[in-house]
């Protein structure tokens, strides 16, 4: 019985250590993996959780895109979780691949990308403020930078 308990404990530890969960960005503490700036603005930010569970944090979606493009084929596998901060609900991370990115001068994201992420196209359209603003999907954003 005791051995069973111990092995159960062992298995549960294994299971816990295998689960891949996004980690909340720690504002004012975590540095951006790409630009090294301290992550401060709660409206912007992004995170990669790789298939192996390694976590990279970014201060803006544009930094995550540049990071992915600088390391081709390394962090954009289907198993890698890509997350971006929902501008409409600061401090919450949403799936970047299904997010919509509003590129509009009114949104001063930390690395000058003027990118705001939303979880629906409708919300992105509602927040459009300048006539030359555009709305991009993840794939358009990735190939456009």
């Amino acid at each position, binding site marked *: 019985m005791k051995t069973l308990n111990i092995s159960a404990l062992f298995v549960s530890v294994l299971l816990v250590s295998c689960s891949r969960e996004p980690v909340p960005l720690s504002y*004012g503490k975590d540095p951006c993996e790409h630009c*090294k700036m301290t992550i*401060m603005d709660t409206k912007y930010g992004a995170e990669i959780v790789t298939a192996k569970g390694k976590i990279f944090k970014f201060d803006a979606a544009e930094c995550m895109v540049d990071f992915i493009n600088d390391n081709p084929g390394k962090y954009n596998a289907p198993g890698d979780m890509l997350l971006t901060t929902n501008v409409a609900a600061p401090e919450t991370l949403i799936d970047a691949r299904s997010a919509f990115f509003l590129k509009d001068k*009114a949104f*001063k994201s930390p690395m000058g990308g003027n990118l705001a992420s939303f979880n629906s196209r409708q919300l992105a359209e509602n927040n459009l403020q300048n006539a030359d603003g555009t709305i991009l999907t993840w794939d358009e954003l990735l190939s456009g930078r």
Partner: protein
Amino acid sequence: MKNLVPIFLILLFNGAAIGKTIVVKPGTAVPSLKKALELATNGDTIVVKKGTYISHNTIVKKEITILGDGYPELDAQFKEEVITIRANNVKFDGFTIKNSKTGAMRDYAGIRVHKARNVTISNNKLVNNFFGIYLSDSQWIRVLNNQTEGTWSPLESGNGIHLWQCGNITVKNNKALGHRDGIYFEFVKNSTIEANYSSGNFRYGLHFMFSDDDLYRRNTFKNNGSGVAVMYSKRIKMFDNLFVENWGSSIYGLLLKDISSSEIRNNRFIRNTTGIYMEGCDGVSVVENNFNNNGWGIRVLANSVNGTFTRNNFLANSFDVTTNGSLNLNHFKNNYWDKYEGYDLNKDGIGDVPYRPISLYAQIIEQIPQSVMLMRSFIVNLLDKVERSIPSITPESVKDEHPRMKQWTN
């Protein structure tokens, strides 16, 4: 001489004819700055007497001089910005500016200057504003002798002195405390930052983004999140500054990222986790600086090229230089290293054997950060000694062929 007197008189009367003075005082016919601005015409002077005035974004659209007498308070009551200057040739001097709104979507500021030229902002005290002084799309602005204190709240703080798309700006003798960045430059050209004091800011004391041809000198950056970050900029001169006590993981005295053709001269880096961190730099020269009591003196990533490190003093740093690669194309010459154990037989003041600033232990920490717990242990000292005598693992290219025997008087 006789001819000069009438000329002088004409000038005097001219001056009087152009500008009248409007006095603002509570309880009089002109009880607010807003009222005075309605009455004023270009060239006038407004003097605001001591008192507290409510100012929900007073907008200055005329070319006038506005002087505070006894630091009158302009208070936005957390509802709006305090004052916006949108005219050329304005002087704004001697006010207490407080309580701008804080907001997620807009950058509310204490004093905003937008699309203006030849404006002076001087001798103001800014308290509890989201952004302190905010300049955008402006040229030839002087920001002198102001003190700005932010909200001291990490998530609800803007920058102390924020510049966006400006040129020919002078920022001198200011103090920035408790903001996100003390001084922030984005797309700012040909500007000078001199003799400012930046402390207790949550991100950086001074922050450059995409700003070229700027100079900062004689500033002090103490105990900020990180000291100074210079990013994606060209031809920046950094002279005579003091970087002190910027402590913590991923915190640097000076962080350089994608910088080219820049000069770092005669600065002092004291008690920082990392004195200078360089990533993706090209043609940066580090000359005549002092690195004292830092964890890492200089950390240069291998993607930096054409760096020169000359006539610096390295004293009591845990690690003088570290890197993550081979550091070809970067040159160390004529520095003073307190860890140098060579000799000088011909007495020319230059050591006869090269000094290798990257220790074996620094290379080990690079691979296995946890090995930091072995610091200053016997085995580490032994390893370093062996490596110094028979170099095999530390990068061959990183060496100072002419190390100084005596300290430079930088």
